[in-house]
């Protein structure tokens, strides 16, 4: 699967624009993309079947879909998304606590059948609510929830409350299913992280592929280079694995990278998505861009089971109204376009999306037009089998925990529901210790 000429030139043009010509000069003229040496995974997954799942069916109840064909997308909203200004409660002192930040009632997007309303920047999502493929989980937290970004992220990603863990919840699930699905052979494309690596994907045997920015993910060589030979030699440095584990980890990154390059070259070859034309560092990492890439990967049906999409900036300590609006608009538009793509490719029923964020923010606003770190937060869940059009849990605004939304729903019950949908009943067994039962999200 060679990287298409057109796509590659797009990248080089972007480089010239950014680098003022210097980088382009280094890579001038016949800059050549190199063909990755390793073809995609050889185990051909079952082809997509487009069953129309019953919208309101409970979790894991769309039996006509081969389970191994399903994909879970975890959309990480890093920084601690403000739950209250995302899914806005009708009552409970929300407006009193936020004289500056409370959203104007008339601007909000109504959610049929509930007292809650959505931030106006998420209005595009209402139709998923209406067709019952979207639900919300309010007051969601990990037990021993921390107000530290790093501790809270560790805990949300590991699915282990309180103490540090070497593995992530998705990584453990991938480990547990690696024998059944892959005869025990690690396949780096089974789990793909877009926008940055996610510790949630870390397992013991599982390999994952982390792509920070799909928009400038490519290989370049100097003019006149036998690129195939040079890439082959680069690949050769990766085997056999040395015994020293740090160097071995650096070796292991190489084949997965070349696989991923082949994959993404294929996802971009038949699209005019502008994110692939831009080689600006930083560009291409919005939810819109990353979810677009995710949809294309899903459409290729190459056995990817889990995707994480990481978007940052939700740590809104100051000037929250404008910042949060832009962040949520990106999420709303990104998800709407994502589902539209899946509809077009007939993949919608294979995909579940769960959002995460390491904590919710404090109920009371601070003096900077923002909110500080809080406790309970919000998860949004999308998919053919969700218990849609419902808010699960609640904000518990009458029983705040030190000024914060208390834990009303254990995050792990949402995780378990997602894993059981992904792999079938009982497939989440062994992923969590002492976790509550799956929630019918």
């Amino acid at each position: 699967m060679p990287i298409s000429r057109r796509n590659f030139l797009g990248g080089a043009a972007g480089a010239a624009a950014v680098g003022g010509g210097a980088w382009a000069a280094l890579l001038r003229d016949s800059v050549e993309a190199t063909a990755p040496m390793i073809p995609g995974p050889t185990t051909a997954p079952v082809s997509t079947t487009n069953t129309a799942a019953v919208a309101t069916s409970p979790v894991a109840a769309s039996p006509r879909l081969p389970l191994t064909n399903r994909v879970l997308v975890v959309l990480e909203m890093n920084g601690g998304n403000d739950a209250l200004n995302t899914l806005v409660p009708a009552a409970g002192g929300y407006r009193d606590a936020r004289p500056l930040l409370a959203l104007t009632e008339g601007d909000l997007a109504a959610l049929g059948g509930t007292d809650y309303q959505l931030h106006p920047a998420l209005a595009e999502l209402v139709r998923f609510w209406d067709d019952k493929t979207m639900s919300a989980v309010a007051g969601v937290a990990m037990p021993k929830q921390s107000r530290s970004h790093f501790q809270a992220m560790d805990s949300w990603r590991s699915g282990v409350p309180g103490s540090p863990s070497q593995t992530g919840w998705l990584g453990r699930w991938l480990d547990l299913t690696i024998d059944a699905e892959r005869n025990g052979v690690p396949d780096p494309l089974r789990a793909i992280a877009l926008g940055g690596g996610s510790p949630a994907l870390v397992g013991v045997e599982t390999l994952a592929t982390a792509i920070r920015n799909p928009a400038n993910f490519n290989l370049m060589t100097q003019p006149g280079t036998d690129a195939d030979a040079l890439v082959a030699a680069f690949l050769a440095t990766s085997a056999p694995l040395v015994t020293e584990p740090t160097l071995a980890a650096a070796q292991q990154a190489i084949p997965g990278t070349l696989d991923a390059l082949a994959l993404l070259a294929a996802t971009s070859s038949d699209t005019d998505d502008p994110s692939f034309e831009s080689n600006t560092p930083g560009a291409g990492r919005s939810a819109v861009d990353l979810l677009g890439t995710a949809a294309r990967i899903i459409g290729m049906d190459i056995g990817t089971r889990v995707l994480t999409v990481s978007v940052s900036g939700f740590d809104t300590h100051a000037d929250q109204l404008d910042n949060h609006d832009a962040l949520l608009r990106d999420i709303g538009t990104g998800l709407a376009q994502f589902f539209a793509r899946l509809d077009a490719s007939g993949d919608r029923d294979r995909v579940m999306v769960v959002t995460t964020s390491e904590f919710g923010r404090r109920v009371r606003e601070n003096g900077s037009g923002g909110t500080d770190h809080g406790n309970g937060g919000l998860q949004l869940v999308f998919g053919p089998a969700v218990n849609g059009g419902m808010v699960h849990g609640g904000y518990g605004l009458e029983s705040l925990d030190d000024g914060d939304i208390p834990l009303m729903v254990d995050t792990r019950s949402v995780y378990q529901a997602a894993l059981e949908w992904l792999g079938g009943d009982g497939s989440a067994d062994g992923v969590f210790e002492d976790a509550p039962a799956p929630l019918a999200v």
Partner: protein
Amino acid sequence: MIQFNSTRETVAFLARRATWGLAPGALDEFEALGVEGTIEFLVNPSAAGVADEASAWADWDFTYDRSDRRTSRAQELQAFDRWMKRLQTTERPLDHQLAWFWHDHFAVSFQVVRHLPAMLDHLELCRSLGRGDFRELIRRVTTDPAMLVFLDGATSTGASPNENFGRELLELYTVGIHNFAEADVKAAAVALTGWVVQRRLGFDARFVSRRHDDTPQTLLGVEGVHDVDTTVAAVTSSAACPVFIASKLGRYFLGDIDNPTIFELGSVFEAADLDITALARATLTTGAAGNASPLVVSPLHWLLQSIKSTGARIETESLIRALGLLGQVPAQPPNVGGYPGASTWLGSSATAARFSIATALAGATPSDAPALVAARASDWSALADLLLRPTGFSEPTLDALNGLDRFVTTRPGEGALALALASPDLLIA
């Protein structure tokens, strides 16, 4: 533990960890100095006759107006250019390693500060105080305009304190997680209220007493905390502080180290009254004794050390772009935790970028550069030595180098040099 079999191996280790690369021949000089002499030279270059440095941006007057993006962008580029040139030419590499460590530690991002002179002042603070008294460093950073903007201290008032800086002061900058309670976050936030940044008047920090809550707070068990000095005194007198800083600085230079080593470094730091140079000296000394682990180097380390070894001629715009592709743009850490670590540097994006940039570096290496001469002659041990790996390349990399056609590139040897630079070996210090 790392086994060093010769002085050359040990000083090469010090060069990989504590400098921004060595030009060909410089490793011989380190070897002649010996291990202790090299550490002393790095820690105290003045004693070796190296002059003090002014700021990289010292003799440069400019008016920064962000609304004029053409001019302000050019200024940002020039600032970056001066910074990178300094890193490549300095005779005080450890000072700049420490400056980079503190920049990573405080993680102030230009994307938030959006004011170039304030950002440069902050970076200069990291350099000029980065090898001095830790208390003074924290005190100055606490009221540093860039920091006041970065973590919202500038909008934190007595009536409505913003906890952002107070929390990170404890969790990330001084004592670390588990060593404070939520009440301490609130206490620090209250005690530090009242500082503003006068954005239209030179972006200076100013204390406005009516925005300050002077009520005495209890912070980490210390009573009567009510302002910057008492806050800094309380956090830096915590027993956790020297250990926390020692563990972070120790891991920056040495990779994974065990707890006894961390506590030992912590006691040295405490006994030296939080003098950062003393901590750095102890850290390099214990590392040179083999008390260190293999470490995945950051893109800036890999790139600058590669440039120094090869003499590759790379323009500043290309440097920025390369670092962006690798995932580490200086002055733009992605979040308050600082630059990402090994998992990102080993990720697919960085791996692909490393290959592409290695080919560009090899292409920009002069034909008479020792690294290219060695590569052309297939003298892999000489090439590895020039790349600060006197023990040679790993077997798989050697095999790959040997299997590579000399004429894979138009210029013989260029392909092998690119491969060596891109190899897993160069990613590990």
